[in-house]
């Protein structure tokens, strides 16, 4: 491609044709401020450069008006000035205009401290809001158990729309209305819960303000912890093992498992367990289910079921494909009923008193736990006083806030171990946190169960990494098992259309994760969650897998124990009662 030469603030620079002024300026060390611009929305090819906020304007000699640097490519011999007095004044006034219609309650705003709008105002030295006038008073939408929208803090940057429409192809949000009355809202102006929103939270990850965020459930957990009658147990999802540390200044991807356990004990949880344990349990059930389907001519390819955003997506947009989804509950929802049955029995605790909290990377997990059918323990004991299987789901961000509230010096905590019975997790479970991980974990177990031989190489590199769709095949006693992996719902849609058209009949197993990068990129993870962060977290996941002594789910001694003492066998009667579920066709577009 041809190179273009231009001058930026007096410096000559040569860049490939098509480079934006913003990126050309970076090359000569000039940082042009941006607000609405986002280079990658979850995946590298999803760009967001609508030029809405007009904060990145620059002057180009020979042009009467300012141009936005985020979406204007440089031209040969352009002479660009990025911080003339006029430009600086314009940027500040544009921000002032934005703030003149913003509910500025920063100290109590959940985005305080990580808000891009706040940060930019500090950077650009905005000290007053001169234009004053009408302020909008729009109702807060808290209809969803996962996501809260405060449109009074929305700057209409439309990042959320790109995340929802382009990345996830859910298209639950829209820009509506004209002029000052324009708003970003759920499609048709409905409450979010009544749209096809799958609660993935990718919109929350990219929102630069406090306009879209997770629903905060920390208050309920503080209350439970303070209640002496309650026996509060907690589980920590695989991906949180490498993400919580970021908020406390540790490098992205650092393994903080031991510190997280220590922090949870200090917060007052009665028992600290690991979702890695129930991830191993999931592999047992899901692996056996796959073998069963292959042997008995069941519906293939089988889809994984760990990602609740994906489940809702399939229910909404591909209800005809629901029989492909594994009937296994997700690891979170396997943990809940086991805590209120097996653990309760072993410890002699009244299951009514057990309160189950999850630490999850995911906003959709809140929705999943609230599904009416997720009350297997109550059915098992035939006791309506037992609450739902998982009582509260906290996202990574909420746990981070609780640790801060309690004044715990997280980065300097000593490592502590999980409690026994449901605390042991293998490397196979650990990699559930990254895209391709569930598949790899399943293959590690399925291979050994089917062939009776030891797997020569544990690492299935083909299914790892940020490539949208990945595939692999493994020979198991003459049967070539073919698998596919997709992450982000846009990528999932590509595969599902093919399944619907009957093109993927010779594949056996498809892993789908709603979020780019898998759970490490979940909608409840620390902000920012950029593509780079996702990649570093993935590295952290595989490093921890390598470090663990046991790396195959069926070798987990606590999993072997629960089958021996309680469940008896995978896909057995108790398993069906407690660990399997069914799905509901929804959606209007079908």
């Amino acid at each position, binding site marked *: 491609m041809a190179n273009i030469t231009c001058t930026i603030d007096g410096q000559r620079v040569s860049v490939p044709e098509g480079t934006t002024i913003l990126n050309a300026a970076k090359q000569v060390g000039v940082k042009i401020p941006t607000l609405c611009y986002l280079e990658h929305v979850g995946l590298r090819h999803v760009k967001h450069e609508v030029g809405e906020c007009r904060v990145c304007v620059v002057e180009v000699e020979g042009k009467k008006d300012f141009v936005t640097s985020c979406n204007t490519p440089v031209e040969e011999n352009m002479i660009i000035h990025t911080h003339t007095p006029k430009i600086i004044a314009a940027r500040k006034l544009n921000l002032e*205009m934005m703030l003149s219609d913003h509910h500025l309650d920063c100290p109590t705003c959940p985005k305080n401290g990580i808000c891009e709008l706040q940060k930019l105002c500090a950077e650009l030295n905005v000290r007053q809001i001169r234009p004053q006038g009408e302020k909008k008073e729009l109702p807060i939408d808290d209809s969803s158990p996962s996501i809260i929208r405060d449109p009074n803090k929305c700057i209409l940057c439309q990042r959320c729309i790109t995340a929802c429409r382009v990345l996830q192809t859910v298209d639950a949000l829209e820009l509506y209305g004209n002029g*000052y009355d324009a708003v970003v809202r759920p499609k048709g102006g409905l409450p979010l819960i009544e749209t096809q929103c799958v609660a993935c939270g990718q919109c929350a990850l990219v929102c630069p303000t406090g306009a879209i965020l997770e629903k905060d459930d920390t208050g309920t957990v503080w209350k439970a912890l303070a209640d002496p009658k309650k026996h509060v147990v907690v589980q920590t999802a695989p991906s949180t093992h490498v993400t919580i540390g970021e908020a406390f200044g540790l490098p992205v991807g650092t393994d903080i498992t031991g510190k997280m356990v220590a922090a949870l004990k200090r917060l007052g949880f009665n028992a600290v367990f690991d979702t890695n344990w129930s991830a191993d349990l999931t592999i047992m059930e899901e692996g056996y289910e796959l073998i069963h389907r292959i042997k008995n001519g069941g519906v293939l390819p089988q889809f994984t079921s760990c990602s609740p955003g994906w489940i809702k997506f399939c229910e909404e947009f591909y209800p005809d494909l629901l029989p492909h989804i594994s009937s296994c509950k997700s690891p979170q929802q396997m943990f809940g009923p086991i805590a209120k049955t097996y653990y309760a029995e072993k410890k002699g605790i009244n299951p009514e008193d057990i309160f189950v909290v999850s630490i999850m990377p995911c906003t959709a997990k809140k929705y999943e736990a609230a599904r009416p059918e997720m009350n297997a323990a109550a059915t098992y004991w035939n006791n309506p006083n037992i609450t739902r299987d998982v009582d509260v789901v906290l996202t990574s961000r909420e746990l981070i806030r609780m640790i801060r509230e309690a004044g715990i010096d997280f980065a300097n905590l000593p490592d502590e171990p999980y409690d026994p019975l449901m605390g042991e997790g293998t490397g196979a479970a650990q990699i559930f946190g990254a895209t391709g991980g569930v598949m790899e974990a399943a293959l590690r177990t399925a291979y050994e169960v089917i062939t009776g031989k030891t797997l020569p190489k544990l690492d299935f590199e083909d299914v790892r990494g940020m490539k949208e769709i990945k595939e692999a095949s493994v020979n198991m006693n003459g049967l070539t098992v073919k698998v596919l992996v997709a992450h982000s719902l846009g990528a999932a849609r590509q595969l599902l259309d093919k399944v619907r058209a009957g093109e993927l009949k010779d594949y056996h197993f498809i892993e789908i994760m709603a979020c780019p990068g898998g759970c490490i990129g979940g909608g409840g993870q620390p902000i920012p969650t950029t593509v780079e962060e996702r990649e570093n977290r993935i590295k952290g996941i595989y490093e921890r897998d390598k470090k663990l002594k046991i790396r195959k789910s069926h070798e987990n001694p606590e999993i072997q124990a629960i089958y021996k003492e309680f469940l008896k066998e995978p896909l057995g009667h108790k398993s069906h009662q407690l660990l399997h579920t069914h799905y509901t066709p929804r959606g209007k577009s079908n």
Partner: protein
Amino acid sequence: MVDFFLDYTQKNSCGECVPCRIGSKRMQEIVKKISNGSVSEEEISILNELSEVIGASSKCDLGKMAGKAVKFTLQYCKDDIDAHRNGGCGYSVPANPGWKAIVLK
């Protein structure tokens, strides 16, 4: 007439960019104050700045025109504005000769 034009801008603005969406609203609020004689010197000065920035940094010509229209008004119809501020307009819009200057430009 400027008020009318800003009304038009508001109704037709796609709402996508800040200067046009919020800025034209803020300008209109000040212009209304000019008409009813309650505007302050400070507000005139911020209107000046707004019109400048909106005229130069809006995304499309609609917002740019809104900014420029106000800018020219402030430049060429100062007498009219002063008259309003002093409690009564001598002319019925748009008879002010200042408008001619804009049209001829």
